[in-house]
């Protein structure tokens, strides 16, 4: 049995990166992914953890006309309760509000959801649909440097991200969607409460005179990472939402996902459900 010998909660990013980089401390945000694994001994407790919640400027939601910028330590309950986010990017507020239960939403952070890199991470699908980027702070000789990573490049596999050891995800940013854009996000689980997605789909569509000018489609729990639906998008852009377009989009979606069978559902069921959710969303978008 391993033991955790040190807990620190520094106020600066530099101290976090020093702890994480040099002494190998595990970055700790809400702990809702980390702590269940420790208590069940799925992974050994790390010797040291560094809590990032006391760092100034890592929490909060800034909505301007052009951009939305969210600190990594912003809680799911904060995303759910933000009236500004509900107006500007309801797809993300909705997904956050459907994570687990109040107890978890009061602790789970946006950054933790992304850095944990589960294919089922519920905020990942809306953020892919929103074309988000994340800011990553890296330890440098003259203090922290920052680099930008697109959300699709950030996810590299189950539990794997583009972060190097010691790097900290600091913010998530995306352009405010056009006021005319319609959106839908849905997750399908095996029960209505406390569900981890068997499959999820997010869509943002902008149309002009009935012709789709821009489309973003994303899927969760149906590939090694949350996935952008390039094929489904191409099947929509430049077209009207006819039965034929919707059928083509659904076929493209079913073809570009690579679900697996596990305790929650079979691969075939997941593929079927992605098609069903996407079809319903597109039919709703055109009004029936």
């Amino acid at each position, binding site marked *: 049995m*391993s*033991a*955790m010998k040190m807990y620190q909660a520094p106020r600066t990013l530099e101290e976090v990166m020093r702890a994480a980089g040099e002494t190998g401390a595990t970055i700790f945000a809400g702990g809702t992914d980390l702590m269940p694994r420790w208590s069940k001994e799925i992974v050994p407790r790390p010797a040291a*953890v560094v809590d990032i919640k006391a760092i100034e400027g890592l929490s909060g939601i800034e909505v301007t006309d052009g951009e939305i910028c969210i600190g990594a330590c912003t809680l799911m309950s904060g995303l759910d309760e933000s009236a500004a986010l509900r107006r500007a990017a309801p797809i993300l507020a909705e997904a956050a509000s459907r994570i687990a239960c109040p107890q978890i939403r009061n602790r789970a952070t946006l950054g933790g959801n992304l850095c944990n890199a589960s294919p089922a991470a519920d905020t990942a699908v809306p953020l892919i649909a929103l074309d988000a980027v994340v800011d990553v702070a890296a330890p440098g000789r003259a203090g922290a440097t920052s680099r930008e990573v697109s959300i699709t490049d950030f996810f590299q596999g189950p539990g794997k991200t583009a972060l190097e050891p010691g790097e900290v995800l600091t913010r998530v940013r995306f352009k405010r969607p056009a006021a005319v854009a319609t959106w839908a996000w849905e997750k399908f689980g095996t029960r209505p409460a406390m569900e981890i997605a068997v499959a999820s789909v997010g869509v943002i569509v902008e149309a002009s005179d009935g012709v789709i000018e821009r489309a973003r489609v994303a899927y969760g729990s149906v590939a090694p990472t949350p996935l952008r639906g390039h094929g489904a998008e191409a099947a929509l852009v430049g077209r009207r939402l006819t039965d034929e377009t919707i059928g083509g989009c659904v076929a493209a979606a079913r073809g570009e996902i690579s679900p697996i069978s596990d305790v929650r559902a079979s691969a075939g069921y997941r593929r079927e459900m992605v098609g069903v959710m996407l079809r319903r969303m597109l039919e709703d978008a055109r009004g029936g």
Partner: protein
Amino acid sequence: MREVVEKVDLAFEVNGDSVRLAVSPDATLAEALRDDLELNGTKTGCEEGECGACSVLLDGKVVNSCLVLALECGGKSVVTIEGLAREGRLHPMQEAFVNHGAIQCGYCSPGMIMTAYALRLENASPTEAEVRRALEGNLCRCTGYRKIIDAVLSLNNGESRHD
């Protein structure tokens, strides 16, 4: 068995009292409450965030105390089920649970009551749908939930003595 490690000082507030403790860095808030402070009203069931038996308020927000490190609570305020009664009288939420038969074995009750209490701090007269949503993270293996929901809803019309 866990390796014995050096304990660290922790100062925080529990049910309105200032408390100082020495805890090991990996102790959870649930462990500190139950093992060090002997506040055994807070239960643990799953220790992985699924059951809600360990629900307490941390700075006014309901959390699973099995998923909080004790050392995270330095300078913060915690309210447990033991903190609800006043001068030997149960809190109205506790009374409502008793009066509605919302308690059978009672194992889930402290967590249920803390979660329902937290809901009413933010929403004084929740709808049934809001109550059901608020209690999504609290499992009860006995009551079938109906009586629990009725108990929480009963406070919408009743008067509350403490707050």
